């Protein structure tokens, strides 16, 4: 489909206004919203993600593409709601209680959004209870937690425990990141995944939600 290819390639160049125009055109041509998303927007973001992973392009290019992606998504959203199309999935993210380091978490949020996920960002200094509450009320499939301090890492464990107490450990997957976190720590506290950067976060959240 030529139009969808054009959406994908325009998105890769980060031309948000043009992506919006083309998306509108596709909607007017009655191409199904799901198709526009999968074969236009997401297809473009997948190429970008791959190039980023190979260090062929850098973060600014990814963010520009993500911005173009939102421009298209904004037009598709009303249709998804009308057609009851399931979205990529919802992810609750935040920096844990006691910790104000939010730069890495913000990047992870931007990249997840760019990959089509609905991101509910709880901000920084977020208590364990709030993560679980938000996952419940938002019906999110994944909780993403960030910690940069040794002192705040225990909050991550608490979230896992709370999920268990609420019988949510299967419905809600967990992923962590930040300088003191590690694969070993994730295993130790029973978190589902550990991501070392924003690109990896997207890859892993896709795996956790079965979108890969």
């Amino acid at each position, binding site marked *: 489909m030529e139009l969808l290819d054009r959406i994908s390639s325009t998105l890769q160049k980060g031309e948000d206004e043009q992506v919006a125009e083309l998306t509108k055109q596709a909607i007017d041509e009655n191409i199904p919203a799901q198709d526009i998303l999968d074969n236009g927007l997401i297809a473009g973001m997948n190429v970008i993600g791959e190039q980023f992973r190979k*260090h062929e392009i*850098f*973060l*600014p290019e990814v963010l520009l593409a993500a911005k173009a992606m939102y421009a298209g998504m904004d037009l598709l959203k009303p249709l998804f709601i009308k057609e009851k199309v399931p979205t990529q999935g919802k992810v609750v993210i935040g920096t844990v209680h*006691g910790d*104000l380091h939010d*730069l*890495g978490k913000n*990047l992870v949020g931007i990249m997840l959004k760019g990959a089509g996920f609905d991101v509910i960002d709880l901000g920084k200094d977020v208590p364990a209870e709030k993560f679980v509450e938000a996952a419940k009320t938002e019906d999110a499939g994944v909780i993403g937690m960030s910690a940069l*301090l*040794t*002192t*705040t*890492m*225990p909050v991550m464990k608490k979230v896992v425990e709370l999920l268990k107490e609420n019988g949510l450990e299967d419905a809600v997957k967990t992923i962590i990141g930040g*300088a*003191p976190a590690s694969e070993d720590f994730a295993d130790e506290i029973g978190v589902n995944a550990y991501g070392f*950067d*924003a690109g990896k976060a997207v890859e892993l959240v896709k795996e956790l939600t079965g979108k890969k």
Partner: protein
Amino acid sequence: MRPKVKFLTEQLIMDILAEAFEILCKLGVELHNKSVLEMLSDHGCNVDMGKMHVNFTEEVINKALKSAEGEFKLYDIHGNQTHDFSGDNVHFTPGSAALNILDHETKKLRKPLTQDYIDYAKILNQLPYIASQSTAFIPSDVAAQISDSYRMFLSLLYCEKPVVTGTFTIESFEVMKDFQLAVRGSEKALKEKPLAIFSCCPTSPLKFSDVTSQNVVDCAKYGIPVEFISMPLSGFMAPVTLTGTVIQHTAETLSGIVISQLTNPGAPMLYGGSPAIFDVRYETTPMGAIETMMIDCANNEIGKYLGLPTQAYISLSDSKQLDAQAGLETGIGATLAALAGINNLSGPGMLDFESCQSLEKLIVDNEICGMTLRLVQGIEPKEDFPSLPHFEELLQEQHLLISKHSRKYLRDEHYFPGTVIDRANRARWQEEGALFLEDRANNEVKRLISEYTPSEISDDIRNELVKLMEAEAKRYGQDTLPERL
């Protein structure tokens, strides 16, 4: 002549300051501490309590700068002066608060334990070119809530040098202040002879957290020196240009200076920082980037222009092992910083974006520090004029190895590195085991640990420190502290 490097013209410094003032007055700062906001409001700043936001005034900034002291000194556990933060004097301190240490045996990262910290403190006590200790890493075998105070406790027990540290919470300040009172005996004595510097980090862009604001106030009250550690990240949380980053750093640091000086005029401060460029390829904050170091040097020039002593997070590396990258980044940083005249340099021992300490790297870096300290002494004539007598002696004796002039000046004029720096000829190097840098460094680590003589801190002080630490640990549910060997 002391050699010197400069990056900014006087005009550029004035332009940067003018922009920083405008930012503080027009855009203001988000500040999450009610009592500090009230204090600022009382001094005529425009405060919005609901938004936790303050617009400064030129008057209040100038008032703070006027009351700021241009220099202060630091003293070791016994009250002997070790630091003179004035002029272009250079002092090194290890990079602080690492999450991990690099294990020499396995070449892998691991979480540090109490014993690692004690080893570190014992080594640092004996490294001649690193003037203070920092609370360099976080022992993982105690409750997380006491990990900031526990480091300081171990430092004071095992190493006699003053401490560069910081708290992770508002609550920890209390016991960390009490440790210092225990050592000095009274608030007055502590004010007269500061023992520690606390790092206080504004949050880029243009924010002060509750913890940082309160730490600045608490330190100012007790006359405990602070170093402001603003961390603008060029191209991410700060303008991409080095000049733009310096403007932001200036604004953030000035706002800290105002909080400190309004609380207690004359309270000691270092105009510091840990800026970095942001590497958009890897999403990291490279401390070893040349531009990061240039920003540090430029910040120092602004601080000095304002008449303040300075600090920077420089002379450290982002490498993961003790390799050539570790050496070159640390070496270039230390050299530039010393030539710039930054007064307190935080970095030695550190790898991996401020997240990993290595005892072996500390040994190597101590030599880097020694070399740069020699460097800044520059070239001064020492009985070199007239020179004819020296050459007459040389021609007559065929060497100057034992001349009076040589014997008098050899040890001052030439810096003699320790055994970790290899200057043997190849055959001798081979005969002595053909050791690579890391193994030579590790030999030094082992030697210094075994040759350590216990700190001469008095039993009374020691007991008081232990009592304070045990009480603090109990507060957080830890009944016993790890064994100390």
